[in-house]
């Protein structure tokens, strides 16, 4: 039997069997859950669309191609990071405390950006700087992966520790100052592409499409979900769980490196305060689950969530409202989403 066939078929079995037994035991509970899921997902999409419509009608310039391009571009850095986190959440399971989480992502972006800017400042070309930033991101991913799969530390704690180390390294490297950087690649990335839309917007779309294809449409992606949602079933069907989890952290580390490069282009160098991005990224990835069919983390859901938050910020500014309201709205949404999914999960386990 080929290596491909066993896990693939196995995980399908693991996925469908519990659903059937559940169907016999508590059909009303399942139906209720389905409706609730549908409402939550439909509701959140409806809220998104409604927000877009309200802004289109009330906020001048909101619906212009340039503005939408700007919002896409402005979401690129957080979006790439949140997609990295999404993959970790898929492979590690949805529980924020014990499951997949990578708190080192924002610090990773900061250090990767600093490496890029420092190399560029030292006279190295774009290629070396890109390689340096990506290698830095990947290295951080490797440390995370080792700490979690070999040492067996809970991701929340392991990545928290790595986050501190990485933030410290960034301070050492930059002395907490801004390191300006210029170069052809940076000029290209910070400029505008076709239709006068920022290049960063194209980067975000391209990156999301590739990640979504791999995660949502390949056997590899299916196994990632199997490992995260039903680790026992995955193990029983012959999937080794640890390499998948390690791989997810490598990928998120790599995303940190990419986001670092994007950040250098957006801010014309490496700046301090990368850590500020951590909570928005976590929020984006968590909020992303409401845009998926089964309330699980998905790449497209995370993209929608990133865009939703960016459109809120953008619309508030266009309406000349205080952007401080945005964090309040965001907090309310998170509270709503987390309580709704928790309630649904409880219903599921009790059934």
């Amino acid at each position: 039997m080929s290596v491909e066939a066993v896990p693939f078929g196995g995980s399908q079995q693991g996925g469908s069997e519990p659903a059937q037994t559940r169907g016999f035991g508590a059909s009303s509970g399942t139906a209720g859950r389905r409706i609730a899921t549908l409402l939550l997902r439909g509701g959140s999409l409806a809220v998104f669309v409604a927000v877009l419509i309200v802004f289109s009608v009330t906020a001048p310039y909101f619906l212009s191609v340039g503005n939408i391009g700007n919002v896409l571009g402005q979401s690129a850095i957080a979006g790439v990071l949140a997609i990295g986190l999404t993959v970790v959440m898929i492979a590690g399971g949805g529980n924020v405390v014990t499951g997949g989480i990578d708190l080192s992502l924002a610090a990773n972006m900061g250090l990767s950006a600093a490496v890029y800017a420092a190399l560029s400042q030292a006279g190295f070309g774009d290629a070396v700087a890109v390689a340096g930033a990506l290698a830095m991101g990947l290295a951080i991913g490797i440390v995370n992966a080792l700490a979690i799969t070999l040492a067996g530390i809970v991701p929340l704690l392991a990545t928290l520790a790595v986050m501190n180390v990485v933030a410290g390294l960034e301070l050492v490297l930059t002395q907490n100052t801004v390191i300006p950087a210029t170069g052809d690649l940076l000029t290209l990335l910070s400029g505008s592409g076709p239709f006068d839309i920022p290049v960063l917007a194209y980067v975000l779309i391209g990156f999301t499409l590739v990640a979504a294809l791999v995660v949502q449409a390949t056997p590899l992606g299916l196994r990632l979900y199997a490992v995260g949602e039903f680790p026992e079933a995955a193990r029983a069907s012959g999937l080794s769980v640890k390499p998948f989890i390690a791989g997810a952290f490598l990928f998120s580390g790599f995303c940190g490196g990419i986001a670092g490069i994007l950040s250098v282009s957006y801010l014309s160098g490496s700046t301090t305060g990368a850590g500020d991005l951590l909570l928005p990224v976590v929020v984006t990835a968590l909020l992303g689950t409401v845009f998926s069919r089964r309330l699980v983390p998905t790449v497209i859901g995370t993209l929608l969530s990133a865009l939703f938050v960016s459109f809120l910020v953008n619309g508030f500014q266009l309406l000349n409202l205080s952007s401080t309201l945005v964090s309040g709205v965001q907090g309310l949404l998170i509270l709503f989403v987390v309580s709704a999914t928790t309630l649904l999960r409880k219903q599921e386990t009790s059934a």
Partner: protein
Amino acid sequence: MSKNEERGLFARREILKWSAVAGVAVAGTTILSGTSAFASAAEGSLKGKRIGISTAGTDHFFDLQAYNAQIEEVKRLGGEPIAVDAGRNDGKLVSQLQTLIAQKPDAIVQLLGTLTVIDPWLKKARDAGIPVLTIDVGSTHSLNNSTSDNWGIGKDLALQLVSDIGGEGNIVVFNGFYGVTPCAIRYDQLVNVVKYFPKVKILQPELRDVIPNTVQDAFTQITAILNKYPEKGSIKAIWSAWDIPQLGATQALAAAGRTEIRTYGVDGSPEVLQLVADPASPAAADVAQQPGELGRTAIGNVARLLAGETLPRETYVPALLANKANVNDVTKKLGIG
């Protein structure tokens, strides 16, 4: 608002008088450019104009005052302010500028911000045909920069420092924000002055002040330095380009009982001026800028520009050095006593 205006006018007159009496080297030019800016600001109108007001943050006394003063002044002159506060986050600052450019306001005023980060976006605003003015940002893409005379501030503070320590001894320097133009100028002026006092030494390595947690961080760093130099007299003074590190440093000196060391800073934050006023405190001097006046001046300049006037490259708003001897007068003149 009219009360504000009155206070502003009163303060202006007093300050002009004061700086004339003080006989600062740059007083002549300061007063000249200052008066012309003030006079025109009163006549200008921004009726029907949308003015973008972007700030790096509002978490310090200085930027909050300057930010609010701009918003009020735009409203007073009949315009509509579009005000955005980046909360000291460079990514947010750039996003807001980008969106602001798409909003096509009649002018954008940028308050503070790291030059290399914002400069490309100020250029994009200019390329989009939007006039850009700045407060405390020395950008080539700015039509006019309202600023305190940072050369004067740096020189005054440095001269006060060397004269206080009798022209000899070690000084500890916070130099974490050399990328921020006003800080760089003040630091360079310190170095220029110290150059001619060979017995004054800037201790190496210099300290890096940070944002956020500036006070706690300065406290920790100074406590560590004091442990490294335990002998009284081994350090004479602590200098920082603004006064929030000075606040932390002063607290650290008081906590360690090393009140023989003096601290120096810039910005005139009320809590630091209070320390300067306390005879027992090591806070020796703080150069107070007039943030509210800076904000009003910048908006006045916008009105002049939109009325077709040509603006000078820089508009200087006078700053006041507060030391142990005159701090009460200065706080009174600033209206924050």
